[in-house]
Structures are given as structure tokens and as C-alpha cells.
């Protein structure tokens, strides 16, 4: 009886763990990408007076969310480009003049909310064009949103199913103690008094189930992580969340959900028997 409850809670939490790691890894990718793309490039008109440059610098610094602003001359920009192009850099050798403009590189707090900032910068004197990776960020955020939503839906369904399973297994315990419950009711026991032991039992099942699944998820993922993390990085240039970093979150979350499912399952299964 207990074994069935514990197993089903474990199974649910196990699937939950997989979903969770997926969601967290996607989150990781999003965060990573956001950090990589936390720059706004402000391209400047040619041959600006230093007063105009100072003005731009001051105005940008005064905006909320701006971490730093750095001037990048056209020569520095070209050097950087050569570096990035690597083996193909020889293609740049044929240029007579440097076609790149001077620019400012503005680092921001959160690229997600940079739109206002960009619009403000665009209106400044001497600014030719402002570029940032809004499209990529937007797409990524939408994608991450879907994953999160899907994860929540799956988790919701799983929790519902497991409450159902638990309530049915606990129902067997309850019905074997039906006589006792009936007598308690006649003597004037409150529903709370009667529920108590069953809820504690449910919570206990939930916590044992959670402990099992925490172990399985942790060691299973640790194995997967140590064998796959490098390969995934080489293929897709992103890292998985590390097992250590999610262990305490998973432990707390599984413990809470397991105990909650157990308690809820008990409550559901008792409902019918308390109406004496």
C-alpha cells in the first residue's frame, strides 16, 4: 500500500526532474545568451567634434540600466573584425580605406528592457545608427516562454495524476480503518482529529518518495552531465546546468511537492469517509 504510493510519487517526481532540468538548461541558455548580447553598438557619424562625443557619452551614462560606455575607434573596430574573421581576415587586406565607423559600445543591465534606451540614444546628435540583438533575444525569450509554459502544464498534469493515484492507494488504508473512523465519529471526533494521522501518513509517503527521486535524479543527471556536458558545448556552445547548482532547489522542490501530493491525496481519499 505504502509502496504503491511511494512509487507513484517517485515516478512523478522523476519525470518532473527531467522536465525541470530541461527548463533550467533552457533558462541557462537564455541567460548565457543575454549576457553575450548585453551590448548596444552606437555607430557614429564621421569626424565628430569632441563636444558632441562628450555629449553623447554623458547622456548615455545618465540612462538607467547602463553599466558602461566605451569608445571604439574605426581602427579598433577593424582590428577586432580581423581578429574575429581569423583565417578569412586576408579578405580585409584589400581595403584601401577603413569602411567602419567610430562607435560607442554600451553595456547594459538587461538587454530585454533596452528598447527605450535604444530609442533615446537614436535621437542624440551625431548618432548614425544603433544596433543590438533584439531579434535574437526576442526569439529566444519566446522560445524559453514556450518551454516554461509546457513544463508547467506537464508538471500540473503529473501532479494531478499522482494525487489521484495516492488518493486511491490511501483510500484502501482508510477503508480498512473505516470501522475505527466510524466509531470516532460517534464519539464526537472532529474531522481534523480523524484526518490527522492519515495526512501525516500521506506526507510521510510523499517525503520518502521525494527522497528516492531526488537520489535518482541527482545521480542520474550527474552521470549524464559528466558524460555529455563537453559534447553539448562543442556542438551547441552552451553548458548544461551543473548538478551541484540545482541540488538544493530540487531537494526543496521535490520535498514540498511530494509532501503536498501526499497530503492532498489523503484529503481527497478521506472526503468520502468523513460523511457519517
Amino acid at each position, binding site marked *: 500500500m505504502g509502496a504503491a504510493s511511494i512509487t507513484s510519487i517517485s515516478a512523478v517526481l522523476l519525470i518532473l526532474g527531467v522536465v525541470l532540468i530541461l527548463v533550467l538548461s533552457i533558462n541557462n541558455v537564455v541567460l548565457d545568451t543575454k549576457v553575450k548580447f548585453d551590448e548596444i553598438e552606437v555607430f557614429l557619424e564621421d569626424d565628430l567634434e569632441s563636444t558632441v562625443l562628450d555629449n553623447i557619452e554623458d547622456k548615455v551614462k545618465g540612462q538607467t540600466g547602463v553599466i558602461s560606455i566605451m569608445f571604439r575607434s574605426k581602427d579598433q573596430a577593424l582590428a577586432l573584425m580581423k581578429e574575429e574573421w581569423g583565417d578569412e581576415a586576408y579578405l580585409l587586406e584589400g581595403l584601401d580605406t577603413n569602411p567602419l565607423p567610430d562607435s560607442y559600445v554600451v553595456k547594459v543591465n538587461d538587454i530585454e528592457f533596452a528598447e527605450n534606451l535604444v530609442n533615446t540614444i537614436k535621437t542624440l546628435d551625431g548618432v548614425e545608427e544603433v544596433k543590438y540583438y533584439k531579434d535574437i533575444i526576442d526569439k529566444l525569450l519566446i522560445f524559453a516562454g514556450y518551454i516554461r509554459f509546457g513544463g508547467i502544464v506537464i508538471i500540473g498534469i503529473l501532479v494531478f495524476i499522482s494525487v489521484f493515484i495516492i488518493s486511491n492507494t490511501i483510500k484502501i488504508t482508510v477503508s480498512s480503518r473505516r470501522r475505527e473512523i466510524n466509531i470516532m465519529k460517534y*464519539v464526537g*471526533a472532529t474531522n481534523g482529529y480523524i484526518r490527522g494521522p492519515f495526512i501525516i501518513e500521506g506526507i510521510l509517503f510523499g517525503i520518502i518518495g521525494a527522497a528516492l527521486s531526488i537520489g535518482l535524479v541527482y545521480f542520474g543527471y550527474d552521470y549524464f552531465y559528466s558524460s555529455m556536458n563537453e559534447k553539448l558545448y562543442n556542438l551547441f556552445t552552451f553548458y548544461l546546468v551543473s548538478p551541484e547548482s540545482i541540488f538544493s532547489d530540487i531537494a526543496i522542490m521535490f520535498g514540498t511537492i511530494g509532501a503536498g501530493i501526499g497530503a492532498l491525496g489523503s484529503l481527497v481519499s478521506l472526503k468520502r469517509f468523513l460523511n457519517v
Partner: protein
Amino acid sequence: MIKFVNICKEYKAGVTALYNINTEIDKGEFVFLVGSSGAGKSTLIKLLLKEEGITSGKMFLNNKDITWVPNRRIPYIRRQIGVVFQDFRLLPNKTIYENVAFAMEIVGAHPKEIRRRVPMILSMVDLSRKAGSYPDQLSGGEQQRVSIARAIVNNPPVLIADEPTGNLDPDTAGEIMRVLQDINNRGTTILMATHAKDIVNSMKKRVIALEGGRLVRDEEKGGYSVEIPNI
């Protein structure tokens, strides 16, 4: 103590178990509720225990209107009514002592009070020697006395017994009646549903008779049936 005013009980559409019951039982009375099987005795008791809802009419306990009480209040009504059934309803895996103590634990009695009171009640029903036994080691009469002990251990003002002697031979039944009389002598109001003619006739108590869900007779010091044969 207990008052029924125009009580009707219909189980499902068409199944009416009680019609217009009007009666009042005073504090300290000992009342027999008689009638053949299906007359509505148990139904009346179930209404009092709030096990079944009332279809129409009003019901009072201790001058309080208990016609309708919210579910969470029902346990507190039941604590004022001790109840004994034909089938004893003891917990088989608890000792006699534990079966009685259990009733006090449920209402949150102090452990010290439980240790003081349970032996006292067990001695009152003459079961002190059996405190450590389990229900299946006791005779039917003894088991019923345990269930009576459990019903009165919290000192309720009212004790209800639904056919308490139904499973017992006449001698044992007499024993149970002596215990109930004893309890009544200490001031507890008793309402006992029965169709044991001999007991009712010998005890000369107030008799309320039900027939097909109607109250047909209410007689002080009455017998099981009136002398005139039924038509």
C-alpha cells in the same frame, strides 16, 4: 432535554420513515422507544445524532435548536450524547482499557484525567478485571458493557441505546439493563430503542411506541403493547 416538534423524515422520494413526531423527554428520564422492525426507531436516533438530516420539523437538545447545525459543529453535538449499538462497535486491536480511553483522547481530555476516569468507569460496569483483555476475549454481555463504558466516559447528559440487548440472551440482557438503570440513577437521561417485550414490560418505564413511522402511543410506566390486541 430532547424535544421533537413535527419531525418528518423522508429518505428518498417516497420512502418516508417518520411522520410528524412530537414528543419531549425530560432530564433524568428513562424512555423506551418501541416498535416493530422498520417502525422508524433507528431513524429517530440517527436524526438526534445528526447522522441523517431532518426533512421538516424542529429538534432541540438541552433547549438548543439542533435542527440544522453546520458540519463542523456536529462533533460537539455528539459529545453530549453517548451512544450504544446492538453490535457493540469496539476496536478489535485495542484493549478494553484502550477502547474506553480512546473516547476521552478524541475529545482532548488530559492524560491524567484519562488515567483517573477510565478505571472508575470500568469498575462501574464491573469490568476492572478485563481492562487488559481484547474484545474477542469477552462475552457479548461484557463487550456491551465496554461499549456502555465508552459511551458514558465523557459524562454526556444523554445516553442513547439502539437495541443494546438485541444480540444477547435474556440473562445477559438483564445485566445490561441493571447497568443502564444504574447510570440513569446517577442522573443521565436514557433513550433506548428496543423490541424486547419482556424488558419493557418488567421495567415499567415511559414507553414511546412507533408504528410505520408514526408515534402511536406515549405512556408513563407503560408496557410493550397495550392490552387491547391490534386490529
